[in-house]
């Protein structure tokens, strides 16, 4: 049913949703009802397919059970489909009315199929109408049009040619289908079934990738969701990716020109795993040259309850680190700052570049370090790291916690107390955290304890990418700035006091835009720690210092 209705399209735009529904669902019903009608007319459960499709051609003068109702129903459905078709034609030329700014470009296979598709239903109307004129068997629509035809000339003259034209257009459509976007009609059903059954993409090309690839109807909804369009990049979006995979002409320039932000995937009516599909292609494309990182040596781990891994990017936002340190100290947590001096990257950036095998090496190295520390919790403050630690590291008995959650828990358990203020904050969902890991509420709850989080339209799964994404290896910095500004201008519209995010990369990207003051949520929390806990922190620091002196014998 989902395949026919596509609720997501409705969400995108009701008119567009109606268009697809009327065409897909309407046609489906025409076939089903027509079949039923034929079955009743023939008094048989098994009727030849052509008989049902061309029923009005065969159907002569005989009245049968409910034939009047069926005539009406069939005409109504035809009208339903035709109305959709009308929208489709309008959409081709006036796409804005449908909430679409862009539509896909057609290729020759598509054009034949599209033309056939457009012709099928008007021809059917005309053919059935002539039948209606000849046999007087039509419903309200066909008999009406039939009467008009009768008025123009002898319907019997048009009778054969029109039925012939109708069947030809139908034939053309099915012949053109495998080479066109309408291939999705058969494939999608299979795909939706498999998806519901819980099957997901593996890290290599296989038949399931083919199923997904062929399930794309090239509706183009992903085009508008894609922020790259803002920067004038309009040949690398998911729909083109799928097309290029299908046509086996995918270039690196297009493959790696994607933010991997996941906005397209959220809105894909068919639910194609666009990001995973692209990841698979990147893996395939770079399989030849994964690095071995022989130089990595196992550093000695420090025993602690909690391991903090700041990550590469966080090292460029030292305020986040100092905030985390302050939070740890205030909460009196036993923490080992694993990459304070040096540690390999988490591996996620390599994965985004397709180099999963290479990332494995870093993951192994880091895993051993974390396990050696004997910690029960790994805290990360970067969503890029969080995703890979959570999904790809095998760390038995170690809970991987994002700092938002971790801080929230500290507050919740009373280890940390924060002051409230009336600051208005816009919270920017980092791609890797939001769409990537599904974490939307925790940061908001946390920030809500300190100030007011402004509610926006483009948030959570519809949030913008900051433009700084590591997923895109091709986009120039100038173009990144356009994406960043798109988000910033939108956020500015809500006149917040500050912009808060939970990703060092987003923070740096937005900070460079100089439109709003940008903070990581750790900074917000660290800045809001109650005086009470502050004095406690001071006490601890003094004690630590005293211990140091004791050790050094001073």
């Amino acid at each position: 049913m989902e395949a026919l209705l596509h609720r997501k399209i409705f969400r995108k735009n009701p008119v567009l949703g109606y268009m697809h529904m009327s065409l897909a669902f309407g046609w489906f019903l025409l076939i089903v009802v027509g079949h039923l009608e034929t079955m009743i007319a023939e008094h048989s459960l098994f009727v030849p397919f052509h008989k049902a499709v061309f029923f009005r051609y065969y159907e002569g003068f005989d009245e049968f059970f409910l034939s009047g109702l069926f005539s009406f129903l069939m005409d109504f459905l035809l009208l339903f489909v035709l109305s959709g078709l009308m929208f489709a034609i309008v959409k081709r030329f006036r796409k804005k009315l449908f909430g679409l700014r862009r539509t896909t470009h057609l290729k020759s296979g598509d054009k034949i199929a599209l033309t056939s598709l457009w012709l099928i239903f008007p021809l059917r109307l005309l053919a059935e109408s002539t039948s209606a004129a000849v046999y007087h068997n039509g419903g309200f629509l066909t008999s009406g049009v039939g009467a008009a035809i009768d008025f123009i000339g002898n319907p019997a003259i048009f009778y054969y040619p029109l039925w012939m034209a109708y069947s030809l257009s139908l034939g053309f459509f099915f012949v053109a289908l495998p080479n066109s976007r309408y291939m999705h009609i058969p494939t999608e059903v299979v795909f939706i079934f498999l998806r519901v059954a819980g099957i997901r993409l593996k890290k290599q090309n296989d038949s399931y990738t083919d199923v997904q690839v062929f399930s794309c109807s090239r509706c183009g909804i992903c085009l508008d969701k894609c922020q790259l369009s803002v920067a004038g990049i309009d040949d690398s979006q998911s729909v083109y990716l799928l097309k290029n995979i299908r046509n086996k002409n995918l270039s690196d320039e297009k493959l790696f020109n994607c933010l991997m932000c996941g906005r397209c995937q959220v809105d894909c009516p068919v639910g194609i795993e666009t990001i995973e599909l692209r990841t698979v292609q990147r893996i395939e494309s770079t399989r030849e040259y994964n690095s071995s990182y022989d130089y990595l040596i196992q550093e000695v781990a420090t025993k602690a309850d909690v391991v903090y891994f700041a990550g590469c990017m966080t090292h460029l936002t030292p305020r986040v680190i100092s905030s985390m340190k302050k939070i740890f100290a205030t909460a009196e947590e036993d923490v080992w700052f694993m990459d304070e001096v040096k540690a390999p990257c988490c591996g996620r950036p390599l994965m985004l570049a397709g180099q999963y095998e290479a990332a494995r090496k870093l993951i192994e190295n880091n895993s051993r370090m974390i396990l050696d520390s004997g910690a029960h919790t790994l805290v990360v403050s970067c969503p890029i790291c969080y995703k890979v630690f959570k999904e790809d590291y095998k760390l038995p008995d170690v809970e991987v916690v994002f700092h938002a959650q971790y801080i929230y828990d500290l507050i919740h358990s009373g280890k940390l107390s924060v002051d409230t203020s009336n600051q208005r904050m816009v919270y920017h969902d980092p791609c890797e955290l939001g769409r990537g890991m599904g974490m939307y509420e925790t940061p908001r709850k946390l920030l809500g304890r300190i100030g007011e989080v402004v509610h926006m339209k483009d948030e959570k799964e519809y949030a913008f990418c900051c433009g700084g994404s590591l997923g895109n290896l091709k986009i120039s910095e100038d173009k990144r700035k356009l994406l960043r500004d798109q988000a910033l201008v939108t956020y500015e519209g809500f006149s917040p006091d500050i912009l808060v995010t939970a990703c060092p990369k987003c923070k740096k990207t937005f900070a460079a835009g100089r439109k709003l003051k940008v903070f990581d949520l750790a900074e917000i929390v660290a800045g809001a720690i109650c005086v009470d806990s502050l004095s406690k922190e001071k006490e601890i620091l003094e004690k630590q210092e005293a211990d140091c002196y004791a050790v050094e014998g001073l």
Partner: protein
Amino acid sequence: MSQFDFLQPKSRQIEIEQFDDRILTYVLEREQSFLTCISCGGCTATCSAGNLTSFNVRKIGLSLRRGNINDLSDEVQKCMFCGKCTLVCPRDINIRNVVLLIKKGIAQLETEKTL
């Protein structure tokens, strides 16, 4: 002439004329921003991999420009793609892509002997 086995003259002087610019061309065709490198070393300073081993991103760029493909293919393997270099580059060079292209270019050279 075994008695002369101590005589193995080999110059390490850079001869601009003898540059192997195949990888450079390959990269520049796809990533123009590399042209504007001023060899400031910001990338090397921030590099995550450079913190762990002798890896110098700036020198990767130089080896690329000077056509030292041998140096390049060994060195470029050390990159972890973390992207910090790109973030600090004063000339907004897409260094991650440059590294990706070098890796790709070298892999292609090795398999196909052409680019």
